[in-house]
């Protein structure tokens, strides 16, 4: 497997969607190719960062406005 073929499969590999034979070839390539290993590791890290639950916390004031709007709507509906 060359680098281009490896990089084209990285997304499917991350999703566990490649067959066993291709997986073996890809892993063999990754273990011997630093460039592709960097791309794989940093792509995985990219996803991890966006999923980090500590980031993008809802500000308290925004939360309070949301809850006030919902309660108002609920009370209107309840009459």
């Amino acid at each position, binding site marked *: 497997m060359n680098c*281009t073929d490896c*990089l*084209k499969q*990285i*997304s*499917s590999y*991350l999703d566990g969607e490649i067959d066993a034979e291709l997986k073996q070839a890809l892993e063999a390539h990754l273990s011997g190719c*630093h*460039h592709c290993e*960097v*791309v794989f*590791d*940093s*792509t995985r*890290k*990219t*996803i991890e*960062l*966006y*999923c*980090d*639950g*500590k*980031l*993008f*916390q*809802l*500000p308290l004031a*925004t*939360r309070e*406005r*949301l*809850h006030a*709007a*919902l*309660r108002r*709507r*609920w009370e209107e509906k*309840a009459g």
Partner: protein
Amino acid sequence: MAESPQVAERKDDSVLVTEAKAGSYAAFEELVNRYENKIYRLGLNLTGNPEDAEDMLQEAFLKAFLHLPDFREDSRFYTWLVRIAINEGLMKLRKQRADKSVQIEDAVGEDGEFLPREFTDWKPNPEEQFKQAEIEQILQKAAQSLSPGFRAVFLLRDVEELSTQETAELLGLTEGAVKARLFRARLQLREELSKVFKRG
């Protein structure tokens, strides 16, 4: 016999949905409490600014509240909520784009080749090397480098963990198109983040 301490019971979403449908605001509020942060994060990453994220958050929950009686529970509550939220967000972006006479999709086809150009190692644990606000800004800026259609696929698949099929149905795409867009979105985001996080 001593009374056992009260343990806060965590009800399933489906139980809360049933109670909310029957008129319990407390049950609906508990659903809001569970997911408000995730929907806000989705809004920030999709729209790129706190004002639009707040609009999206409010609209999503108000619509969820209004349409709760119609929710047939053939999917998880959260998947249903994300569907409402992403549609609100994309509608907002379409409106903004229309105002500027710009198409929502960029000129690159969904199968457009995108191969990495940056091969330098990243610094270890960038989340520990930057302040939280800086990391958030970096991630948002990188997300905005994607066209909304690609951004939506990435956020739905990788962050909200919807399946390829759910994402395809929600966005009106084929499953193949979802996979192609996800591939490109991941690599393009990685490329953007590499500019900041690479060693040296």
